[in-house]
């Protein structure tokens, strides 16, 4: 009669095998089991965590939206438009939910980022030695706003087109560099398929990679410096 091992024994064997090759248990314990100081036990200390969770939602739903989204704005109706309004919204199973979670997470993210920033400012947590983390945070705020801006064009509907037209005009009104900025943003002499291609690339490849990298730095710095004491 075969002896069936208890599930915990299997778990122990796997964890031990891993731990002999890299101290996983130790690093996971260090990452997760941190005491929260009593003064940080208030709801407004949670805004940063909400930002993190929203970014996780956005990464996940964004990846799944990319299964059906077509970044091609040539023709009328453009594949970009129909891939959102028809394929994702009506044909793909729960596609409307995927887009809805992406949309609402994106909107809430901007709110939460600003609340988090307000809390850090209000509790004076930007002071020495945490200035560097404040700078990283401000950079991530800019990245979040750029993500919101580039993502807004992707559905390629009338609202998206004209909102981006206005945005590009604002960039184009910069002194001296205006026409250069406008051409680079548009990817040509006018707002069109090249613009969508650019905004898609920035929205999907460049900015998410940057923000994930900076989040890692942000959290490392928090762990190194601890949560700031109240004023």
């Amino acid at each position, binding site marked *: 009669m075969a002896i069936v091992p208890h599930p915990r024994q299997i778990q122990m064997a796997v964890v031990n095998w891993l731990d002999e090759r890299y101290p996983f248990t130790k690093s996971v314990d260090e990452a997760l089991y941190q005491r929260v100081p009593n003064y940080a036990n208030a709801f407004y200390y949670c805004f940063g965590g909400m930002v993190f969770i929203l970014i996780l939602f956005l990464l996940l739903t964004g990846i799944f939206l990319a299964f059906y989204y077509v970044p091609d704005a040539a023709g009328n109706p453009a594949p970009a438009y129909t891939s959102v309004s028809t394929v994702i919204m009506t044909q793909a199973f729960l596609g409307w939910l995927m887009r809805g979670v992406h949309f609402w997470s994106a909107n809430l993210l901007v709110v939460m980022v600003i609340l988090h920033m307000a809390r850090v400012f209000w509790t004076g947590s930007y002071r020495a030695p945490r200035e560097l983390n404040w700078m990283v945070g401000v950079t991530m705020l800019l990245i979040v706003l750029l993500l919101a801006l580039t993502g807004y064009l992707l559905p390629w509907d009338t609202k998206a087109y004209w909102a981006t037209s206005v945005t590009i005009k604002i960039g184009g009104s910069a002194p001296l560099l205006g026409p250069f900025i406008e051409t680079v943003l548009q990817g040509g*002499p006018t707002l069109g398929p090249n613009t969508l291609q650019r905004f898609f690339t920035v929205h999907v490849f460049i900015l998410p990679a940057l923000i994930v990298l900076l989040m890692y730095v942000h959290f490392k710095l928090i762990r190194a410096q601890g949560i700031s004491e109240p004023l």
Partner: protein
Amino acid sequence: MAIVLPILVYIYPPAGNNKKQDLPIKLDKPLGELANGEGLKFQAPAETGFVMTNGGGDNAAGKIAFAGYAVKDAAGKLNVFAINCSHLGCSVNLVTDKQRFECPCHGSIFNLDGQVIHGPAAYPLSNLDWKQGTTRDQIVVGGIQLKGIG
């Protein structure tokens, strides 16, 4: 620097995608039959646009228009304008009985020579580069190829 600079140049869109070309446009009637104070509206064909030759504000030289007007002023002088208002680029309407262009967005008014009569526009309408085409009702307008647009 040696790595970043070429990347920055790479990001700047190449001009080869958007070749300049002359666009033959068929008008609703021959230019010779236009009465003084009368104008014709025309559209750029699919995947092309007209290139503005002058202007200010939102209408700088080199910017793109997707429609235009061929219009004779009271003295019989013929002008070909891009349709865009020099304020923020809306399409202006030709109001024949008032002998002027009116912008529906913010109320700018231009006379048939393209000069500003009433703001907020601060610059005249932009001219398009044009010449008489091979038939009487055709003009050839300076334009640019725009793949995938329109």
